[in-house]
Structure formats: structure tokens, C-alpha cells
């Protein structure tokens, strides 16, 4: 058993309101863990605690072997993060973005150049490597953002609704990219509110109003809730 994320009774409260209410789960190495839930179910809050930018009100958590309360500094080198806004600098070129993000993770220039070239080759971006991000189409930006989030070869990459606002074909291509990353041993923790994306994940947790209401593989959830797809599971749980 090689667990990269271990969470026990994690809670984040804002006054009386519990954005995340006593959740517990594990994620295994190399897994794609789908963190599903409606907008406002507490997915982003949970993710912020796991990435060390939000202090939990109570509960315990370990990511990549480091405590999310006390070992944030070590933890940060082991994780990558991609927000729903893709988070690239529009006024910098592709190469400059990669160089900057590589730089803040402490990579040396040689490594940055090597990995940039590898990434450009893999994604077929030779023509736009010196183009400003603002001139690059959305679907490409998203792939670039993912590659940038994994430029320091983290153990786990957190993806916060990475496919919102992207067309189905690009979404499919994006998932191919995620598979590629897991083949290299990177664990993927992904939030989404597209229920159909659940079938791409190894395991799924379903969050409703701050609580994890269901967790397991797709088949397990479908049989348990006697549903034909995740949408139905979601509707049954949310009711």
C-alpha cells in the first residue's frame, strides 16, 4: 500500500458554516482520483487545504508523506497545481512561462531548457514556443498549463476543474495528457463537476454540501446506487 494522500476527519469551518465537513479518504500512488461534486460543494476548499494554502479547522492530512499543517514547505516541492483559470501569464511567451514556473520551483537553467524542449516536442508546439500566451487558443493553453504544473515532476498534481469551459474534443485530449502523466508515476487529484468525466478516473469521491457521500470505483458506485451513470448517482445523492 503506497498512499500519497491520507486524510482523516478534515474540516474547514467559516463560522457556523462547514465548507468541508469531516472528510476522510486515501489516494494511492499513480491513481487518478476524481473529486466530484456540484459547484460550492467544498471541492476547492478541500483542495486548498491539501495544497497547504488553507489551514484546516480540525482533522489531519498527509500529502506525499508530509503533514499539511506542519510541513507545508517540504510539501510544496512535491505537488503541482493547476487552477480552473489555467493561470499562465498572458503577456509572457510559452517558453517564458515555463522558465518562470521552473525557476520558482528552483530548477536550474539546464533542466528547464531540457524539460521545455521535451514538452514542446510532446505537445507539438514548435511553431508557437515564442508566441505570447494571449495569442494561443484556449484548448492549447490548458494543455500548456498542465505541462507547466508538472514541470518540476511532482509526485501529485492537483487539477481544479481543469476542463471547465473547454470543448469535448479538447477535453478528451486533455485526459490523454493526464493518462500520460500517470504512466510516469504522477498521482492525479482532479476536481470536476462533469459527471461523465468520472469514467476516466480510477476512483471517485462524491461530495455533497461539504461531506463525502460516496466513494469507490465507477462500477462500485453504479451498483451500490443502482444507477446507469454518474449523473444518476449524483442526483440520488444530492436529493
Amino acid at each position: 500500500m503506497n498512499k500519497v494522500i491520507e486524510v482523516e476527519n478534515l474540516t474547514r469551518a467559516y463560522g457556523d458554516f462547514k465548507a468541508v465537513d469531516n472528510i476522510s479518504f486515501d489516494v494511492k500512488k499513480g491513481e487518478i482520483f476524481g473529486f466530484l461534486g456540484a459547484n460550492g460543494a467544498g471541492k476547492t476548499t478541500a483542495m486548498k487545504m491539501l495544497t497547504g494554502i488553507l489551514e484546516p479547522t480540525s482533522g489531519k492530512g498527509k500529502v506525499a508523506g508530509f503533514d499539511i499543517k506542519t510541513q507545508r514547505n517540504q510539501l510544496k516541492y512535491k505537488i503541482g497545481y493547476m487552477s480552473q483559470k489555467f493561470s499562465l501569464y498572458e503577456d509572457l511567451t510559452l517558453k517564458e512561462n515555463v522558465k518562470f514556473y521552473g525557476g520558482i520551483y528552483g530548477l536550474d537553467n539546464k533542466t528547464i531548457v531540457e524539460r521545455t524542449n521535451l514538452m514542446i516536442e510532446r505537445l507539438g508546439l514548435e511553431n508557437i514556443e515564442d508566441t505570447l500566451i494571449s495569442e494561443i487558443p484556449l484548448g492549447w493553453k490548458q494543455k500548456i498549463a498542465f505541462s507547466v504544473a508538472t514541470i518540476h515532476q511532482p509526485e501529485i498534481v492537483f487539477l481544479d476543474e481543469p476542463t471547465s469551459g473547454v470543448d469535448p474534443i479538447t477535453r478528451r485530449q486533455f485526459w490523454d495528457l493526464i493518462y500520460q502523466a500517470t504512466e510516469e508515476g504522477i498521482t492525479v487529484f482532479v476536481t470536476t463537476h462533469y459527471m461523465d468525466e468520472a469514467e476516466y478516473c480510477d476512483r471517485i469521491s462524491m461530495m455533497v454540501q461539504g461531506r463525502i457521500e460516496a466513494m469507490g470505483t465507477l462500477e462500485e458506485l453504479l451498483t451500490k446506487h443502482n444507477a446507469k451513470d454518474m449523473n444518476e448517482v449524483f442526483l440520488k445523492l444530492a436529493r
Partner: protein
Amino acid sequence: MNTFLAFIRKEFKHIFRDKRTLIILFGMPIVQVLLFGFAITTEIKDGKMAILDLAKNTESQQYINKITSSGYFILEENLQNYSQIEESFKKGTIKIALVIPPTFAKDLGTSKSSAVQVIADASDPNMANMLTGYLSGLTNSFALEKSLINKIPINIESKMLYNPENKSVFMFVPGVMTIILMLVSAMMTSITVAKEKEIGTMEILLVSPLKPGVIIIGKVIPYLALSLFNAFTILTLGFLVFGMPMEGSRILLFLEILLFIISSLSLGILISTISKTQQTAMMISLMGLMLPTILLSGFIFPVESMPEILQIISNVIPAKWFIIIIKSIMLKGVGIGVLWKETLILLVTSLFFIVMSIKKFKIRLE
């Protein structure tokens, strides 16, 4: 260190790729100094005037010559009767009117004093005040020339210290510098931090191993450099174009400028912690910082003539103290021995803002 350099490099790229930022950074200081220096002066030249000369004799002619050759007035109209005075004011062709009574020459040189009437357009009170002031000055000196008693008991010999020619540009150069430094340091910094929040990159930076302190310092250093550059440009323009004096220590001037920039930068960071978007950051900077700074710092309106409540408020405006410091160093040549109080106030406010902004920045992270 590598991490830090990567950050600074990125910040400079943001600045140099944004045309609007560039114009604000490099165009505005020059334009403002030149504008304030040349176009906006508190001294008035060529005030348009009309004269109703009812005396029409040699003395009145001499009197009129004295006024028109002073450079302060231009004789726009020679009026024939009283009713024309108001007409001219209403048309807006004149700012001031002078009525010389028929008895003008007769009264001169006798013990009986003579009266001339001055009517000014007070819809522009500043201008009206100044023009009447000039006119009474000229009239007094004319009266003295014509007086039989050549000596009057008390004679005022005034001397304008530190700015003998009464040049308003000596007031404006420190003022403009203050405004520009405030704008670049506080407003631009708050906007650039808010921008990272708006486009979502701030989250990435916070998740990354970058320490919050490094993020703040990385954001601030480019603007510190540019602010210093701007201060240098403005002072150079002041020296070369307007002949600003530099009586005091350059090192002290530099340190005081640095101190003011640091206080403005920390204000900028403070603003950015409470604003989520660039627009909010800009509005808060403009309304909450620039406006009070321009109005209450004594840059345009003298603090001494403000209502007491505003005078009290003006004490918390760093720019007020900075302007006093700059003027004292440049014009009077005084040192830290005199300026320690103002410097201390700046120092304390800077520290206060720095502590506040670090605190706020941290709270937001939790």
C-alpha cells in the same frame, strides 16, 4: 536566489510589455513636470484690464503707463462711462477694471488723499485677489513717486528668502515628484498584485514553494527601481529646465526619497490585500490615496489655510511631511538635525504600513 531572480525578471517583463504601464511610468513624470512648470503658475501675467479715465490729464496718463508697463496687466479697453464696466465683465474680456476719478490730478500732492476705484471679477477669487494686490502695489509706488513728502515714516523692504523670484515651479517640482512616486509605488504595485489574483496566478504562486515574503519583495523591487528612476528624472528636469536649487545634502535627499517610496510601496501592498480585482485596486488607490494626497498634502492648497479638522487629518498623510522635507533640503539646505521630526513621522508610518500589509497578506493565506 535563482527563484527570486526568476520572479524579478518576470515582473520587469510585465512592465515593459504593457504599453499603458510604460506610458504612466515614463511619460507621465515628464509631462506633469513640464505641465506644472510651464502651464500652471500661481503668478499671473497679462491680466486683462479696462480703464475708465475720468481725469484725462498728464498724471493719470503717467499712472496708466506705470500700470501697463509693469507686465502684470494688459490694457484691453479704454472705457468712456460707468455702464461699460459691467458690460465688459459680462463679456468676459476683462478681469479687472480701474476707475480714475476726475479729481485725480488735483488731489495729488496735497494733503488730501485721492481714491481710485478697482473692480475685479471675483468669479475667479484667486485671480481677483492677486490682480488687486498687484494693482495696489503699483498704485502705492506711484503715489510715493508723486508725493511731496518724499519720506513716509515706515517703509517695508521685503525679501523673499529661499525662493527670491517667487517661482511657483519650486513648489511644483517637489509636489509632482510626490504624486508620481505615490502613483508608481502605491497604485502600480497594488494593481499588479491584484492582477495576479484576478487571472488566478496568485493561487499558483501560493501553492509553489515561494515564500509570501519573497512574493511581496519580488513585486515591490521593480517598482522601487522605477520610482527611483522617476525621482531622478523629475529632479533632473527641475534642475536643468527650471533651475531648481539644491542647497542641502544629496545623500539625505536620496534617503528621504527612498523612505517615502518604501512607505508608498507598503501602502500599495496593503491596498492589494483588500482588493480582488485591478479595478478595485485602482479605485482605492485613486480615491483613497491620490485625492487626499493632492488635496491635503499642501501641494496645491496651503495646509495652514484649511479648516482645523482638515489640518488635523493632513497630519496622517505621508506626502505632507515628504513635501516639507524635500523643500527644506532643496531650497533651504537644512539637514537631518532640523528634519528629524518629519523623518521620524515618515519612518513610523512606513513601519506601520509594512507591518499592517504583512499581517493582512498572511491572514489572507490562512
